[in-house]
């Protein structure tokens, strides 16, 4: 990924210097090498902090809602770096008229999978000081206070990359990628199927155990590109859902279920919710359940595969499956 990275950074600088764009939405290294955070660079000079490495998992599409409008107001354009999976979210937001497309320059960037620092740690590394990608592109050298070690990249991918949707960009103005699209990786619905095979009581116990970990930090909602309402229903008194003070409330208890339905048919399975959850709740299992059901009931649908699609929940056919027929399928 090294080579792509260098070309991406160089091209971003070039576009800024030429004046094609006046802002760059990319990733900026944080205090630690692995906490690359979304950042909007506003000068060529500031671009020295732009990084693109194995820890740039964050999906930048959502930032285009505000930044595309702001860029337009300033008479400029914003450059956004989008990995293949991020482009689905970008398209979905275009479908929903949330991004001023004319103010955005999309640089599609090739991606070979993002790594999860926690999974590296799980491999037994302590005191990690840095990680370098080896020339084979398949392993990482992990530098620690106690010496170096090696780990296979496939073993430490973030969840969304473990089940990568493919290496093809759905939308871009310019593309920097050496990857051939190999199609999706792994069976992303395996986790859903596992749950479906359980008894309802066991499923309830599973979710109760997972969701009880939730601290309602709203990280999932904040990172989610589909959760991009101007004002979230949970903060909107008229919705009948929100109730700020009372913790023993409907909203509090059903937060994740409500959220999952709100993004059903719009979720691109970008995996940000699960990635950002500080409690490690497998939130993607909700989204993938909806995606799996939609595919099975109404035919394959990939939100964001192209802009302007009519989502499955704002669509119908006269001979759609009956909810009763659904009951007979799968589950218990």
């Amino acid at each position, binding site marked *: 990924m090294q080579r792509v990275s260098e070309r991406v950074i160089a091209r971003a600088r070039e576009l800024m210097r030429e004046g094609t764009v006046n802002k760059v939405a990319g990733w900026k290294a944080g205090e630690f090498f692995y906490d690359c955070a979304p950042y909007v660079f506003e000068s060529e000079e500031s671009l020295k902090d732009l990084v693109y490495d194995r820890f740039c998992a964050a999906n930048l599409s959502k930032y285009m809602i505000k930044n595309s409008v702001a860029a337009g107001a300033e008479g400029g354009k914003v450059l956004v770096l989008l990995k293949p999976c991020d482009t689905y979210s970008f398209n979905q937001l275009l479908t929903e008229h949330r991004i001023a497309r004319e103010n955005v320059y999309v640089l599609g960037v090739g991606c070979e999978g993002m790594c999860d620092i926690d999974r590296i740690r799980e491999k037994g590394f302590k005191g990690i000081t840095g990680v370098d990608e080896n020339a084979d592109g398949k392993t990482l050298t992990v530098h620690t206070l106690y010496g170096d070690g090696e780990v296979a990249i496939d073993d430490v991918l973030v969840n969304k990359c473990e089940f990568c949707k493919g290496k093809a960009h759905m939308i871009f103005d310019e593309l920097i990628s050496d990857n051939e699209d190999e199609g999706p990786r792994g069976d992303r619905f395996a986790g859903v199927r596992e749950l479906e095979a359980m008894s309802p009581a066991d499923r309830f116990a599973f979710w109760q155990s997972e969701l009880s970990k939730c601290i309602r930090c709203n990280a999932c909602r904040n990172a989610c590109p589909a959760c991009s309402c101007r004002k979230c229903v949970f903060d909107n008194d008229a919705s009948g*859902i929100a109730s700020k003070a009372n913790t023993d409330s409907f909203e509090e208890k059903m937060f994740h279920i409500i959220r999952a339905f709100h993004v059903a048919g719009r979720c691109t399975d970008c995996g940000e919710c699960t990635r950002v959850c500080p409690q490690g709740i497998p939130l993607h299992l909700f989204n993938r359940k909806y995606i799996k059901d939609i595919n099975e009931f109404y035919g394959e649908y990939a939100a964001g595969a192209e802009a302007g699609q009519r989502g499955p929940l704002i669509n119908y056919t006269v001979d759609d499956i009956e909810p009763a027929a659904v009951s007979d399928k799968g589950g218990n």
Partner: protein
Amino acid sequence: MQPGVVFAQDYQYMCSEAGQNIIKDAIKTHGLTGVVVCSCSPRMHEATFRKAAAQAGLNPFMVEIANIREHCSWIHKDKEEGTEKACVLMRAAVAKVTLNAPLKAGESKVVKRALVIGGGIAGIQTALDIADAGFPVDIVEKNATIGGRMAQLDKTFPTLDCSSCILTPKMVEAKANENIRLITYAEVEEVSGFVGSFKAKIRKKARFVKEDVCTGCGVCMSKCPSKKGLNEFNMGLNNRSAIYIPFAQAIPNVAVIDKEQCIKLKTGKCGLCQKVCTAGAIDYTQQDEFIEEEYGAIVMATGFRPIDASKFDEYSYSTCKDVVTSLELERIMNAAGPTGGVLLRPSDGKHPHSIVFIQCVGSRDVSGRGKPYCSKICCMYTAKHAMLIRDKYPDVEVHVFYIDVRTPGKNFDEFYRRAAEQYDVDYIKGQVGKVYEENGQLVVRGVDLISNEQIVLNADMVVLATAIEPDPTARKVANMLTASIDTNDFITEAHPKLRPVESPTAGIFLSGVCQGPKDIPETVSQAGAAASKVIGLLAKDKLTTNPCVAHSDELLCNGCSCCEKVCPYSAISYETKLINDHGVKETRRVAMVNEALCQGCGACTVVCPSGAMDLKGFSNKQIMAEVDAICL
């Protein structure tokens, strides 16, 4: 008492004048801001109570009904359980009403023109009555002439007067009336809009004959070399030419070319009719035309057809020519029919000596082959047929197999008894199990339940009183009009007793058999009733619109267009405008609801991700409060 409730009173007849006064007084005395009436279904008296509240100065939409009759006391035998449930329903209504907001009805226009779909006796009568009141009416008839089924009948019961003698003057009147426009050989393709201003697109199929030029002389028909078309008017019992006038009294009396049959239209050769037409009315290049028109009200008068008797193979309808349906017999008996009105059996044109009538063929049948309902008219027309045959041909033996003879109607039972007593028609209580041909002889095996014997009869003709079903176009038309339809494809009335000529969809009215089986006098009286409802509507200058419409909070709207895509009325549009959110100004795309178009279904509210879209009168908060109160 529930929180917020300051006054409660029990009264037996709340909907009575006295009951309404209790409500009015309470509103004034206690300065009530909301009223809950625990009573019968809101579908019954919501309007009554809302009006009473309005008279007392309260916004009518601050009234909610707890349905403790149809949904509670009438179905729960256990008094304690029922009472408990009534309390819950009341609690839910109170929870809702405290969140109600005063609503104001808007106004919409009334286009003073009516559309009648179907030009049978029902449609004609409705149109005549509307036209007489001074409103323009369009009749859209799918066939080349108006007249419908009644035109095919020979005589009518119980008076035995000639059907066309009483129908033809009405048809002529419809043609002559200045307020009536006949659009024949046409079908309604699209309907949009709502009560007061519907927009309809009508396809006028190409006749290949200029309607305003053709004199109806009929020379073309005699010269046309393609004479093998089935004569639909005579139920296919004889043939007609490719260019034809359906029957002598057709209105308009204009020829039409069957394009599937016409040699010229199929091969480009012939053109004989054009050559002989002295008026120059033939136009082989004619195309379908479209008429677009606005209407304030639409009347469905789509009528019926007999069901397909070949489904009942035990009666051998499809294999024996001498087994006919009653409507076919009408044509055989009719002077303008295939036999010139002489009773001759179809197989060999001989005079029959014994005729067996079988009633309830496909009526009252839940086996899946027939219809579960009673077709209502068959008992009477069978008595009519039997009587007419016995009267004209006393040598013919007539047997009628019946399950019940149903004759409610003025002079109906007397009519049936005359058939049995004076005309010696043999009525046999029982059904026929099988009709078959044996050595060229029709044999009928039935049962006489009274004498408890199986009967085998030789017959020269068998007549099946086939069930009637709504015309197959009814379902399509009803869907277009968003009028609800029952499992038998009859159009549902707004109330089976109190609003029998209206559809639950405002502005749609029902006339004739499309609503349910009925005979001619009933059809005509219903047609008049539908007309009077239409006139009542068209007489208004403005309609008040339903204030329970969707509303989008532009501060919350993302501009995502989900709502726009699910709206069945195209009532939602998007506009880019300057939004001032507590001092923060921004120009962006937001949804706007056209309140005149919105019918208040709420589809948009659920797809709205941000909750910006809500429905007045059924808001998210109100329904949540109801759920809350019920699940307490």
